């Protein structure tokens, strides 16, 4: 499913200064995300990526600038937007089963019992955890726990999913699996994705567009369009010359040395 042309999320001149510490985490960030687009934000560690996502989804009040979703100004977390945190162990509810976690936010939606059971089942099936519904999250591996968090978000049926380094604490194989899972969810449920990561390859692999942030106080350094088509494949895409040249360019921009073996002439 290709990205639409309607702008879903519009972030304009967003600034966030923490009153408690006086730290200006983000200086001024302007970006937009179109319907069903996969957009990534990459930036060095501590450049305010988490702050940016929390401000975008209305958890934090911006110091300046604005966020609009579907043309509506965001001031508190809107039901069309869900943020998935890096630390699944802290965001999941350990006293609830996997199914209980996924069902938890649906109580707010006043779904009938059967309907919410169906939604839970569908979300768990989509992330491949239907057999683990009755387990507790802490009985599962890290990658599976993050899938529970993603299933919980998907079952809520948001229009856009914000992902804060969601795969940073899982091993490389699981990471590739989860990357492909998010691509599938975008196609299957038509959910727009805004991902934050410090992994440039991941950003290029997944995205239609990539925004590169500067060190703090951060601004958007550059926007990259990633013309790699709708279907991505871990092997084919990552060895595509266009992929390699884009990730090299971004590496160069951020000023990080390239891992030698993967560098192309």
């Amino acid at each position: 499913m290709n990205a639409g042309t309607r702008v879903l999320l519009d972030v304009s001149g967003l600034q966030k200064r923490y009153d408690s510490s006086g730290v200006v985490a983000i200086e001024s960030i302007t970006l937009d995300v179109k319907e069903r687009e996969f957009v990534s934000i990459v930036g060095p560690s501590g450049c305010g990526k988490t702050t940016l996502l929390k401000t975008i989804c209305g958890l934090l009040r911006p110091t300046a600038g604005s966020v609009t979703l579907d043309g509506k100004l965001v001031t508190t977390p809107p039901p069309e937007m869900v943020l998935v945190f890096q630390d699944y162990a802290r965001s999941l509810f350990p006293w609830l089963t996997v199914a209980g976690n996924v069902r938890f936010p649906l109580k707010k939606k006043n779904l009938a019992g059967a309907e919410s059971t169906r939604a839970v089942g569908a979300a768990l099936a989509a992330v491949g955890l239907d057999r683990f519904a009755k387990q507790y999250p802490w009985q599962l591996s890290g990658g599976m726990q993050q899938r529970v968090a993603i299933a919980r978000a998907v079952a809520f049926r948001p229009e856009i999913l914000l992902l804060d380094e969601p795969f940073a604490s899982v091993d490389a194989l699981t990471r590739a699996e989860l990357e492909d899972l998010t691509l599938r969810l975008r196609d299957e449920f038509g959910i727009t994705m805004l991902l934050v990561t410090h992994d440039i390859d991941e950003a290029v692999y997944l995205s239609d567009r990539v925004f590169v942030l500067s060190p703090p106080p951060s601004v958007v350094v550059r926007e990259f369009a990633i013309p790699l088509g709708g279907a991505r494949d871990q092997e084919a895409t990552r060895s595509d010359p266009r992929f390699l040249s884009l990730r090299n360019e971004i590496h160069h921009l951020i000023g990080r040395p390239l891992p030698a073996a993967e560098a192309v002439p």
Partner: protein
Amino acid sequence: MKVRRTALGIATVVVLLAAWELSARLNKTVYVPPVTAIAATFVHEWFSAQFRDQALPSLLRMFAGYAIASTCGVAVGVVIGAYRPLYRLVDPVLQFLRAIPPTAIIPVGILLIGIGDTMKILVIAFGAFWPILVNSVDGARSVPQERLDTARIFGLSRSSTLLTVIFPSALPGVFAGLRTGLSIAFIMIVVSEMIGSTNGLGYYILQAQRTFAIPEMYGGIVLLAILGYCLNAGFVAVEHRILAWHHGQSARTV
């Protein structure tokens, strides 16, 4: 392995009791009667109406006081811990009040309410309240920010966040407080009955000592030990059921 440990434990107890018996019989002092004499008195005294007249009132007072302390301590504690400005406001006062040894409040209770059951129940409640409160506050304060953010993202109201996210998150702290509160309630019942009472185990033990009914005195203490042990065992069983998720999770991360 487990059988051997149990056997070893029983053996230790038997040896200690035998040593007591032997030294009591050799020394022939009135103040430390032989174990067998205490045991005989214990059976005679407590497998009778005495249990209803002395032990039951103690237990009922304790449960009443503990119930009041638990309800108030958990409710107030979780609310204070959940609401940061309130916490900052009341924390110094709480720290000061909890430092009062609960037994010191008994004279105040007698002065204000007299020496009836109400005084004892309230004094027990006062003693058990503070550890329950303080631990509930800590439990509610230690909820990870991501969990609170998740509740907001899914549009939960303040009250449902409190009930369905903060309260369950606080349960490990709440139970730590309930456990300390239980042992303090147990101490308070004995002390309050020693100071102003006409029945109850504290009264019974002190009365036995005053009338030189020495085996009865020791028998009362043994009964307290047994009751305390059972209460704690019951508490641990309940806690293990309710906090199974917490223990399972901690076992995984260690």
